[in-house]
């Protein structure tokens, strides 16, 4: 069967071509019935929701919610601060007695070594990477021991203040400092091997 080419189709005349062109135009879209009324009703309802009395209530509600949120956050912050304060208060304070150092102690290389060791210990204990594997019980024992030795030092200093010639008290002071130094050095060495 022979293929028909449009260029060689029968001439259907200008009317038919015009009609095809008109058919190809987009059809006119008209709004659905009563759409304008529906739009007006919607606008009216929206305007009612924004009436002055309702807007005030909404603002009050929002303010109340914001106030409640702020109060809650403040309460949480307060609990955190109090908890932290309690932890700091209850925690051993190894350096608590160091302001009581006498002039002779400030010059004593053993005392300086102990103070240096204490600072090193505190830095290490607060280093989350270094102290990650340290058993809690061991850390607590070291802190408790440092506190105990500082209490002992304070007691000895009191005795020396009353009687500067007390050789036993002076010897005790030296012995306690040596214990502190060895405690810190050995503890750090052991814990760092873990």
């Amino acid at each position, binding site marked *: 069967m022979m293929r028909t080419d449009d260029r060689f189709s029968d001439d259907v005349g200008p009317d038919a071509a015009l009609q095809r062109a008109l058919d190809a135009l987009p059809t006119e879209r008209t709004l659905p019935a009563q759409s304008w009324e529906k739009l007006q009703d919607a606008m009216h309802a929206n305007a009612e929701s924004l009436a002055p009395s309702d807007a005030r209530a909404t603002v009050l509600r929002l303010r109340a919610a914001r106030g409640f949120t702020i109060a809650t956050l403040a309460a949480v912050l307060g609990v955190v601060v109090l908890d932290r304060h309690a932890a700091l208060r209850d925690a051993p304070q190894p350096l608590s007695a160091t302001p009581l150092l006498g002039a002779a102690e400030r010059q004593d290389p053993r005392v300086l070594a102990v103070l240096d060791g204490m600072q090193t210990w505190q830095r290490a204990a607060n280093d989350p990477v270094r102290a990650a*594997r*340290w*058993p*809690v*019980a*061991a850390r*607590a*024992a*070291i802190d*408790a*021991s440092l506190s*105990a*030795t500082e209490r*002992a030092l304070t*007691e*000895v200093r009191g*005795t020396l203040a009353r009687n500067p010639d*007390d050789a*036993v*008290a002076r*010897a*005790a002071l030296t*012995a*306690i400092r040596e*214990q502190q130094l*060895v*405690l810190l050095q*050995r*503890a750090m*060495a*052991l*814990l760092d*091997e*873990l």
Partner: protein
Amino acid sequence: MPRAGLLVAISLWHGATTAHAQGRAVSRGWRAAVTAAIKVHAPTGSVIVEGWDRDSVDLTGALAEGETVFGGGSAAGLKLGAEGTAVRGASRLVIHVPWRARLTVRSGAAEVEIRGVTGTVDIGAAAGNVMVSGELESVIAESISGTIRIAATTRSVRARTTRGTLDVAGQIAEAQLSSVGGEIHVSGQPLGRLRIETIDGGVHVAGRVAASGSLDIETFGGAVRIELPADQQATLDLRTSSAEITGHVDASAGRSAIPNIQSLITRTGSVVSLVHTLGAPTRAAPPITVRTFRGRITIEAQRQRR
């Protein structure tokens, strides 16, 4: 039928939980010289190191979830043990080593027990308890928060705790023991050269001090109690700055009876001291020296009354 299914499910569940509680079984071995230097690591749980008469190291036991076994080195030097972080359960390891090995053990929170080895032993524990027994060349033991118990015949002991009790018994030629707040107990026959230091821990020494030995105790607040046999020869030099000295000593050969030690005590202010020789003055008298700041001193050297 449903009841049988339930029983099967229960037994499977029980088997699974029991296996979990017992941990993952492990068994490893290494070749080692009889005098090898062996270092053992144990983070948690427990480790028993026992000497045997083979030239190898054997590790068996169960591992906590999260821990693995490692080991390596040469026949002359080995390093082995558990590593990692236990998330569930506790490792229980038993390690056999040549009995003449030189042993080092490092423990995090693991309980450590050493027995049947004769070489040098060096144990460091952060939070675990330590127990050493046997006939050893020397013992070094440290525990920060755990207790240490040594029951051994050895020429040398160095032991230190922070808060834990230190308990030493046996035949010991020389010992240096110290603690910050832990009690120190020593008993032995005979005691050689013994030095004890503590801040607040109580000290209790019981036994005969050898003629070539000595006893040197220093505390800050810890009370000191010394129990000697009635015929002990010794030169006592005891002093407390703000406490009391009490006790009893018996009459020894050539001496009159001393029913109460109070008659020997000297007081200077708050300082209380006692200097006295026990036993016959012609025989060797090892020195017994005690210095304490505010600890009470008690010395007993008498036969048991019946």
